[in-house]
Structures are given as C-alpha cells and as structure tokens.
C-alpha cells in the first residue's frame, strides 16, 4: 500500500500526536524543551561533569578566578591549563594563589577523580581531569569560593538537587491536587465546600513567615536527606492548590460535555466515566499546569535556601550557592560567584516558555 496521505495521517492521529504537531510549531517552546532536557541530562550526570569533589575544601585555593582552558598547544589540539603558584602579597603579606603561566598542565578526558555512585554503580570516572597534576592544581572553570571549593562542580551538583526538588515537589502536589480537586468536583456538596474553603485558607497564608516557622520546626540534627524531603513536602503542601483548582474546573466542565452524558446514558458507571472519558481529556492540561508549577517550585526552594530557611550546608543547591554571593564584599572580591544565578534564570525561563507552549497545544481540538 502506498504511504498514507497527509489527510489520512491526520484522520487517525491521536490526541498526543495532534498535541505534538501543534507544539512543534511553537519555536520558543521547542527551544525551551531542548534547554530543559539538557538541564535534566546535566543533573543526571552531575558528578561525571564535576571536575573536583564539590565538598572538598582547600584554604590555599580560596577565591581563584575562573580559569580558562586553552584548547590548542603548538597548533595541535591538546587542551591545557596552568598550574597554581603561591605569591606573597607585598602589601598585606598574604599568600595568594594565582595561575603560574610558566607551567602547563594538560587536560585529560574521561579522567579518574573522586569516587561517586552513578545509578548505583560506584565509579570515579569524570569528563575532565588533569594529567600529572601537582599539589593544588585543578580545573576551576568558574573559579572557587572562600573555602576553595570548585564552583563549577558545586553548580553541577546544585543543579541536580534543585531540579529534582522541583520534580519531587511537583509529584507530591500533583497527587494532592488531582486527588483533592477530583474529590471536590465528583462529590460536590459539603465535601466540595470544605476543600474549596481549605484551599482559600492555604492560599491566603503569607508564605515566607509560614516557611520560617516550618523550617524552624525542623530538628537541627536531621540529616541532609531528611531536610531535603521535609523541604519538598513543605513546598508542595502549599503548591497543590493551583493544581487542585485546575483539576476541579476541568472535571466540572467535562461533566457538562455531551459525550460524558452519552456514556452515562449508555449505562457506563462512575469509574469508567472518570478514567475513560474525563481523565484522558484533561491529562494534557495537567501536564501543562505541571510544567508551569515546576519553575515556581524551583524558585521556592532557591529562595528558601537563599534565606537560610531551606537546605543548609553542607547540602548544595542553587539557593545555597547564591547565599555565598549574598554580601557585597564577597561579590567585589569574587564576582564569579554570581554565576550561579545564570542556570536559575535559564531554567525558569525555559520552563515558562515550555509551559506556555504546552498550554497552547494542550487542547488540539480547540
């Protein structure tokens, strides 16, 4: 048989195909999708991309400026960087480490470094490393902080933490939102009234003081992981209300659709109507709502941690990295620390454009 014609393809296209065709036309959203996917790939391979242990401190390498990698040596592709040397400042008599341009250190791909576990596999493989590195030598693509920790490596790990906190948080609020929104719409009556008033109460709470209180209530002796989960739960407890409203609204409007009534008149039970006719009808809307809720989650975590209410060191997240760039003195001394804001802005923008595109494409029959 000949290849199906365009109109034939269109005739048998499922909702998801139509949505995808429509989404594909939204250029900015497509670019954003690529950005978001790249960021999540980066989050998965954070340790592999890190150049040194993000937790390892070294007083000697404090505040080293971003250190460029030279790609060509003597006209051949042989990336190298310079080693470090200590210089005594003639005025302050402080020992300052700067690049020693007389000493080339060659960069190696798939090098051995600190040990980490990737998807349960213990390994020490890293994308970049140094060949024959001397004491204190390292690749500091984005410089180092006060304690001499490599910012690039810390940023990789922070990206993983911040992006996953968004995912976990959204999953929890999605669960709460669909459950409570659905219950609210399906049962109606006093159940609906109670849930709706509850949503209004939650939404009317001033978030920062609430976070302050909840964060203060977390025991000090909790491990980083425990704090991490506590924070996601706190964030999602506040964030589910929007989703619940979307779900409830969709349920109510779908109940008025004639195809739902047709199923009911054909003798379909409540379960079939909900799971066969209603949920698939707004799944795409939920995805769009989620992709718009994610950046809000990420921002929440970042601001909380920035204010010192969220994750705390030694945990690493975007908020914690930005915390280091909090005072002007540090910024004057090490402006590169502010680079941590760049991925935050990129990801938030990308998620918003992506969400916009998805929302426009979510109803391909409109």
């Amino acid at each position, binding site marked *: 048989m000949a290849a199906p014609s365009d*109109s034939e393809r*269109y*005739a*048998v*296209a*499922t*909702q998801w195909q*139509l949505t995808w065709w429509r989404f594909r036309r939204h250029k900015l959203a497509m670019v954003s999708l690529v950005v978001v996917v790249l960021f999540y790939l980066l989050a998965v391979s954070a340790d592999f991309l890190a150049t040194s242990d993000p937790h390892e401190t070294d007083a000697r390498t404090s505040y080293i400026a971003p250190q460029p990698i030279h790609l060509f040596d003597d006209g051949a592709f042989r990336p190298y960087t310079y080693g470090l040397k200590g210089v005594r400042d003639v005025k302050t008599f402080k020992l300052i480490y700067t690049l020693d341009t007389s000493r080339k250190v060659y960069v190696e791909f798939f090098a051995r470094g600190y040990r980490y576990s990737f998807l349960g596999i213990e390994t020490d493989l890293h994308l970049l490393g140094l060949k024959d590195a001397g004491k204190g030598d390292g690749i500091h693509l984005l410089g180092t902080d006060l304690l001499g920790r490599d910012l690039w490596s810390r940023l990789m790990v922070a990206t993983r933490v911040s992006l996953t906190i968004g995912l976990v948080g959204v999953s929890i609020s999605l669960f709460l939102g669909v459950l409570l929104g659905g219950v609210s719409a399906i049962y109606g009556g006093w159940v609906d009234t109670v849930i709706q008033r509850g949503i209004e109460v939650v939404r009317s709470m001033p978030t920062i003081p609430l976070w302050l209180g909840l964060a203060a209530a977390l025991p000090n002796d909790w491990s980083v992981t425990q704090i991490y989960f506590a924070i996601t739960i706190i964030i999602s407890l506040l964030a589910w209300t929007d989703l619940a409203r979307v779900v409830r609204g969709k349920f109510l409007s779908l109940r008025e*659709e*004639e*195809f739902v*009534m*047709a*199923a*009911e*008149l*054909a*003798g*379909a*039970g409540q379960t*079939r109507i909900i799971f066969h*006719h209603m949920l*698939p*009808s707004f799944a795409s809307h939920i995805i769009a709502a989620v992709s718009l809720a994610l950046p809000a989650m990420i921002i929440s975590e970042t601001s909380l941690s920035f204010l010192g209410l969220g994750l705390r060191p030694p945990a690493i997240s975007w908020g914690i990295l930005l915390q280091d760039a909090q005072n002007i003195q540090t910024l004057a001394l090490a402006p590169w620390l502010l680079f941590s804001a760049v991925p935050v802005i990129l990801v938030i923008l990308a998620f918003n454009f992506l969400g916009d595109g998805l929302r426009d494409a979510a109803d*391909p*029959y409109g």
Partner: protein
Amino acid sequence: MSGSDIILDVRGLKKHFPIRRGLLRRLSGQVRAVDGVSFSIRRGETLALVGESGCGKTTAARCILRAIPPSAGAVNFTIDGRTVDLATLPRRQLRPLRRHMQMVFQDPYSSLNPRMVVGDIIGEPLLINGMANRAERRARVTQLMELVQLPSAYFNRFPHAFSGGQRQRIGIARALALNPGLIVADEPVSALDVSVQAQILNLMLDLQDRLGLTYLFVAHDLSVVKHVSDRVAVMYVGRIVELAETETLYRRPLHPYTEALLSAAPTPVPGAISSRIVLEREIADPANPPPGCPFHPRCRYATDMCRSEVPQLQEVEPGRWVSCHRAGELGLAGVG
C-alpha cells in the same frame, strides 16, 4: 389511544431548579423549567417536542431519560411487556434499562469523545453492557456504520476528521448500537448546514421505517419538525400548550402561540410575509411566570380570565389537546 402500544407515558413531569442567593446559599426562588408536562408516545411514531429557548423542552427530554432527576411526576416506560416508572426507579435498577432508550445530541462536536476512534465510540455502549466480545463488537460496529451510510474503512479515524453531518451519523450509530426501542433526539439537525440537514432527516426517517424506532424529537424549528413527526407537542414556559397530529396542528392550530410560531417561521418563498403575526414582548421568565395563562401578556386574544386563571391542557377533539381558555372559539390561521 389503546394502552398496549404505548411505549412512553409521561404524567405531570416537573423539574424545578432552585435559585440560591447570598453567602449562605439560601433558597430564594425556583426556575420552573418543566412544570407539569404530560404526553404519551406510541411505539413506532415520532412525537416532536417544539418550543423556543427556555421553554423546557431539552430539560424535559433529559428528565425522561433520567440524565437529570425530575422533581415530580411519572415517566412510565414499557419495554418487553413490562412497565416501569423511570422517574422513581433506583439507579441500580435503572442502568440495565438504559440500553432500551438512547439519545442523539444536538452538538455533533461535543457529543463525541475526541480521544476515541469512531469504531470505539460506536462500540462503547456494547462494551459497557457486555453485549459482545471484541470480534462481535467489530462486526456489529461495521454493520452500524453501513446502516448510517458511513464507510466502515473509517473505523480507526478520530472524530476530528469528520464533518458535522458525518459526526451526527456517528452519534446516531452509537444510539442504535443497543437496539433501543426509544430514541430521544435533542435538536439533532439544528447545528448542521442546510444541505446536510436534509440528509440527516432522511436518514432518521429511513431508520425508523427499517428498525421500527420510536422518536421523541426535540426541536425549535417547525419546518424541520413538519418533515419528521407524526404528532407535535408545543411547549411554552415549561408546559405543553397544544398537542395534535402534525397535519392538523399546522393546518388548524388551536392555541394562539402555535399560530404565532407558525406565522413567524420563515418560508423560502419571496413575498410570502404579508400575514405575519409579530408577537409583542419577550418570552416569560420561568423563574417568575405571569399569573394566569403564561402566554397572556403576548397574546392578542387575551381576556380577563386569561390574566387570572391558569388554563389546563384539555382534549378538545379526539387526539387534540389544547391549553387555552378560548380554544375553539378563535379561528386561528395555519399553514400548508
């Protein structure tokens, strides 16, 4: 009418929607959408329920199928020699009866789930009622598609690939899937283009002849109704004002509202409007109907009695029911 061949007998059907106001949602009034409707339908005939927007025709149709629960009245449905009152039947006992009465909807777009292929849409009633296995279902759906003149090759297409008229055929095939005795068609052609309307009307007539279907045909358009119905019931503000054989009702209406409706229906004959009756004012508000006959503020024949006493639907001739104090004494104009 002999009792034996009556499939549906509606008695005193009422549907009142509460109006709630204020923070405490206090009951402040009622919309009497359907306010005491009685009629019966014989097996194999088409009864049209006609009226303008807000007259309660769609609400009445939905109450009859128990898509929404009626406030009062009885809906006696006779199937396989057994009569049940659908209005009071518990939900559990209602579900197995659903397959005997199906609905064709007005909007060919919202009435088909856009996420299901045509074959699944038409076959869904069979699936729900466990009537057939996969292969049998496929065979039955193919047969139904042929019945409504849709190529069965379209089985795997989604509704978005079809025109309004084809979608309405799909809706009809779905309604026929379970071999129902009664089909309630709610404005089945009013959303369609003229050139497609005629196709669907003819299809419905053909199917009725072939399968012995009974139609309750809800419509606002008297011209469409003339082409499909055996008898016509005219509704105004929640009540039936006149019910008669189609030919009789059009030729010799007995209610002033029927006369006005017939006169207002546009006819495709240039220069045919000389005797048009243009009604004054607006349709009465079903939340706050006027005292006496609800039609009296617009009626040019109204007397003092019409302003104070509510007329009852009475059989003035065999098979002719009118709700008007002056029925019979007015020589009203008809058409055709």
